[in-house]
């Protein structure tokens, strides 16, 4: 299976074991430009590990991860991020002692403006860039409904607000690939709508989006493409509506044992 022009993320033959426990077994997954794909499956199936491997936090035992044809294996996490991969963590990992606005600004600032001497020597230019970034950040915070919280410390917010901050930070920079780990948890219905709007907007702009989700209703609101990961393998990929009709999908999702795996139509 080669990568096409439209494919942003290509995962081939990915395997990872932790001691005796085989977490991921020969996983194959792809995501195209502008495609939103949901990765579903019971807890402990290895979904977050998959994200960890793609974003460079863990090494796979075997297999390859390609971003627009370029291998990500062996790159440092910040190098992968610089290539246009953005991630929402399941446990958020906010910068708790920074304000909401600063959390977003960090994601928006390119490395040229982060030289220690930059502020001292090219003060005016950096200041101009900063003003530009602030406007952009406040605009984004407005989109997620956090404008009033902009100057509060991220650590002091409610869990829903923290989730929105994390989302804003993830969507701040222009990324080619978005890895969202449970974007809808902790969000009330209004916030959920804002989150799904952000996701749809990013995909419309050409970003490939992969979400890990348990809430199938939320999944249904943003996309029809799902991949089911259970017992370390992608068991089925396909359309949500089609799969909902098959009991294999529901059984697997509810966690009962699967003795045979039937690769479905991609």
């Amino acid at each position: 299976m080669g990568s096409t022009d439209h494919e942003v993320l290509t995962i081939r033959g990915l395997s990872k074991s932790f001691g005796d426990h085989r977490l991921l077994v020969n996983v194959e997954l792809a995501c195209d430009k502008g495609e939103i794909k949901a990765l579903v499956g019971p807890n402990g199936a290895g979904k977050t590990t998959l994200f960890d491997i793609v974003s460079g936090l863990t090494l796979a035992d075997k297999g390859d991860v390609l971003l627009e044809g370029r291998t990500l294996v062996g790159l440092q996490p910040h190098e992968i991020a610089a290539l246009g991969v953005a991630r929402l963590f399941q446990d958020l990992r906010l910068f708790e002692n920074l304000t909401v606005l600063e959390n977003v600004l960090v994601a928006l600032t390119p490395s040229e403006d982060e030289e220690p001497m930059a502020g001292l020597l090219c003060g005016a230019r950096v200041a101009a860039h900063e003003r530009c970034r602030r406007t952009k950040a406040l605009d984004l915070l407005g989109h997620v409904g956090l404008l009033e919280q902009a100057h509060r410390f991220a650590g002091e917010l409610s869990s829903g607000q923290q989730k929105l901050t994390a989302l804003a930070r993830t969507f701040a920079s222009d990324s080619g690939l978005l890895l969202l780990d449970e974007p809808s948890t902790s969000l009330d219905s209004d916030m959920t709508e804002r989150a799904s709007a952000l996701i749809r907007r990013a995909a419309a702009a050409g970003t490939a989006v992969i979400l890990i989700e348990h809430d199938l209703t939320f999944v249904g609101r943003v996309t029809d493409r799902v991949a089911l990961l259970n017992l370390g393998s992608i068991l089925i990929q396909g359309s949500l509506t089609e799969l909902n009709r098959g009991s294999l999908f529901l059984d697997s999702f509810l966690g009962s044992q699967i003795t045979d795996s039937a690769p479905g139509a991609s």
Partner: protein
Amino acid sequence: MSMYAAHLVSMLSIYVVLAASLNLVAGYGGMLSAAHVVLFGVGAYALACLTSILGWPFLIALPISIVAAGSLAFVVGSLCVRLSGDFFLLATLSVHVLLQAVFANWIPVTGGPYGIGGIASPSAFGWSADSSLEKAFFTAAAAGGSLAILGRLLRSPFVRSLQAIRDNAVAAGAVGKDPLRFRRRSFMIAGAFAGLAGALYASNIGYIDPHAFALDEFVFLLAVVVVGGAGDARGPVVGTLVLFLMPEGLRLLPITAAAAANARQVLFGLLLVLAMRVRPQGLVGRYGFN
């Protein structure tokens, strides 16, 4: 202004700069570095050697001392910033022990246990700050300038990302920041400022020996940063004022000087424990070592 008061102003100015530099690595960078006092020492010894032994003018010796401390900080930082918290402290502690040994034993250069004396006062273009009052003015001005520069740095995108790395290095990596690069650079900059403080110290007192750069000084410095408040530009100022003036009260008690010195150290140690227990972000700080 009495000589005592002028001397106090000089010392306060020097320690505020030193505390501010530790605040950069520990408060903003989240790196607990025990090597800071010897970096202060490197600056002091460099200035002392250049002016006292080689006879170079102050205005030339000062920048060289700053560069010396900064360079050493760069080397130490490059080696150590990849280490996690506990081990980073241990590693910098080793650096402290090693440099202390150099200060105390490299007699031809550092004068060994007897130190270096006769260090010239700060001077520039023929004018020399000889009296306590002149020294106080000069040192306060130098400190003010340093704090202004440091203050600007603390508000820059560089330090904002440094704080992000402090709060969550993994998430910072996920938005494109290389934790090691930021930590290395901030460690080097902090070292340079510590060296500056050291050079000011040497030329102010006129005499230095290894005792001034012992680990006891580090406990004081850490207490200043923690009690004043880590991660906030005002912290070092508040902390230095409080911790300089608080033990002055001990002078009034009928105890020996040695006992007072030990009592001060007990106080600083207890303040550290208490702060972590009750108010880790100190008086005006933003960062609670969490």
